[in-house]
């Protein structure tokens, strides 16, 4: 586990560390309120408690809504202290680069300048190397095996510290510290929440197509630490992670049945969700985590049901004779978008969370499936089949402003990063296996996910606590 605290602005005299017993992550959550110190001169750093000065018009920032973005050049030299310092810097730089908004600057000749991460760097040299932002840090191993990691984000042109924090973490949590630092940098410079300290649940695929092994698996969003959660002969499909990140719901398909399971990541226990006549599939948590919506197929008719996880009471939301599946809640829990072929072909529909007020929202040519409501609420991602190709696309919840983000032989299963800016999905190439890809919601920055083995049905976790 890790904890963190905000660092005061760097100045020549060493500052006092706050004890590492600070409340776990309380300060991380307050980051948006506290971390910015614009306009501070390095010689006379104001105390952290002073009111922030108005932002300078030329303040360092990345506009994530512009159509074309020149990635911000950022230098992330190795943190001081042991090999893990270099490892942490590498993970930070990789996170930032993959976002598409940053370009790590290689200025290794300047690395040796950083001898004390709490002393302001020689900005002119970093400017000369082309960096507009600079991240410095150091790692100290405590006697109890914990790591203390300090980092500071600098505005190279305005010669000021933008963020400073200290983390305390067990030695094996160094990657999470790196992701949290990357999240803070991303947030400070883009204004949007980060998404790097997250995990992705997915289905690991191996073996030939006709005899494929499909196991539930989980990894860090950057592909590190993959591990299997099931190993049985059942085929696993469509895992989704709960809003608190602790539970997974998924479908296990055997020769005889399709059942929805709940898997608790803390206890590694799993339990089947309810006992229904017919096949149960397409589960998804409600935003409060207290309910699961899913489909039950009875005699060829799939309808959407909602189960309260505490009372285990189940309510049927749709009664149409067509296929009704793939329910996904709006972030406020008031509405559900789902997939239905009641109109003759698979299209997207929105209903109130009690099943009333159904209306169709997709009207373009082609077949629309797998709707997923953005965690920000502003968009719905989907898969669209048209012209023999598959696309991941987004539209507004009223169906307007449809945009296709990808085009390939077989794309499907979009899942949103918790900040609503990045979509992970699975792509299968003709003749090849499936693996995960990510794309920015703008349609730029399409790239394979770092995990290169066979994978489908990704589900992006919320930010870890």
């Amino acid at each position: 586990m890790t904890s963190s605290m905000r660092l005061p602005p760097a100045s020549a005299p060493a500052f006092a560390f706050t004890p590492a017993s600070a409340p776990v992550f309380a300060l991380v959550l307050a980051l948006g309120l506290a971390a910015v110190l614009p306009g501070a001169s390095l010689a006379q750093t104001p105390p952290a408690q002073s009111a922030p000065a108005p932002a300078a018009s030329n303040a360092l920032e990345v506009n994530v809504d512009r159509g074309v973005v020149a990635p911000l050049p950022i230098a992330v030299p190795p943190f001081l202290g042991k090999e893990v310092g270099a490892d942490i810097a590498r993970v930070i730089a990789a996170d930032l680069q993959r976002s598409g908004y940053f370009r790590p600057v290689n200025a290794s000749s300047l690395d040796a300048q950083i001898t004390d991460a709490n002393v302001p760097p020689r900005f002119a040299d970093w400017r000369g190397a082309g960096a507009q932002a600079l991240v410095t840090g150091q790692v100290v191993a405590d006697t109890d095996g914990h790591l203390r990691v300090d980092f500071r984000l600098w505005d190279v042109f305005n010669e000021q510290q933008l963020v400073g924090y200290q983390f305390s973490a067990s030695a094996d949590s160094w990657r999470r510290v790196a992701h949290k630092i990357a999240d803070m940098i991303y947030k400070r410079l883009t204004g949007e929440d980060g998404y790097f300290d997250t995990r992705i649940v997915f289905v690991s695929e191996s073996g030939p197509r006709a005899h494929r092994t499909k196991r539930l698996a989980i990894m860090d969003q950057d592909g590190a630490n993959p591990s299997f959660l099931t190993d049985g002969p059942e085929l696993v499909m469509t895992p989704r992670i709960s809003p608190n990140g602790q539970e997974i719901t998924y479908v296990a398909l055997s020769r005889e049945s399709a059942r929805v399971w709940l898997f608790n990541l803390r206890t590694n226990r799993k339990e089947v969700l309810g006992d229904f006549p017919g096949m149960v599939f397409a589960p998804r948590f409600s935003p409060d985590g207290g309910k699961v919506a899913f489909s039950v197929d009875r005699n060829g008719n799939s309808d959407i049901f909602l189960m309260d996880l505490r009372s285990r009471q189940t309510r049927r939301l749709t009664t149409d004779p067509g296929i009704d599946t793939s329910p996904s809640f709006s972030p406020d829990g008031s509405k559900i978008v789902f997939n239905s072929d009641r109109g003759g072909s698979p299209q997207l529909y929105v209903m109130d969370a009690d099943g009333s007020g159904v209306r169709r929202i997709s009207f373009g040519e082609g077949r629309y499936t797998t709707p997923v409501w953005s965690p920000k609420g502003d968009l719905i991602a989907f898969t669209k089949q048209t012209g023999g190709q598959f696309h991941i696309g987004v539209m507004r919840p009223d169906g307007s402003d449809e945009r296709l983000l990808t085009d390939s032989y077989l794309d499907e299963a979009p899942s949103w990063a918790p900040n609503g800016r990045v979509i992970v999905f699975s792509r299968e190439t003709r003749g090849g296996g499936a693996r995960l890809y990510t794309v920015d919601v703008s349609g730029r920055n399409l790239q394979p996910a770092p995990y290169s083995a066979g994978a489908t049905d990704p589900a992006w976790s919320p930010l870890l606590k």
Partner: protein
Amino acid sequence: MRNLTRLALTAAAAAALAACASHKPPPPVAPTAPPPPADTGAPPPPPPVAARPTGPLPGTEQDFVVNVGDRVYFDFDQYTLRDEGRRVLDAQAAWLQRYPSVTVRIEGNADERGTREYNFALGARRAEAVRTYLIDHGVAAGRITTISYGKERPIAEGETEEAFAKNRNAHTAITGGVR
């Protein structure tokens, strides 16, 4: 296992005796008799006794698979039965009435040209189309269960329309009651 071996031997025998390919159970074919000798006036010798391959034992799973057909196929994103599918299901219904202790599971399948959850529901509809047809043709509903495998259990590899067409099917699997 014994049945499979027998089936393989049967097939080998049939292939050796008659080099004709057929989807139907190969009817036993006698080797062609040599042409009668010319101008002898004597009656031709009786043809040699044909070695008749024994087909699968009636009422076995192999009998069902080989002589009836255990799979029907569907058009893209469709679950209505084709004419040839109805003929296969007519034979299935007759066979199941002949062997009333047999129980079956109808497994609906979809090709990969669709997304996972929708195709799962589509496979369920295909299985239901077969179940309904069999019930309408005299098979007791209690003998039939259904499951969808969606696009998870394809039988044909490859990304060709031919492979996709094979993977859009409903398979009638015998789950019990065979001899």
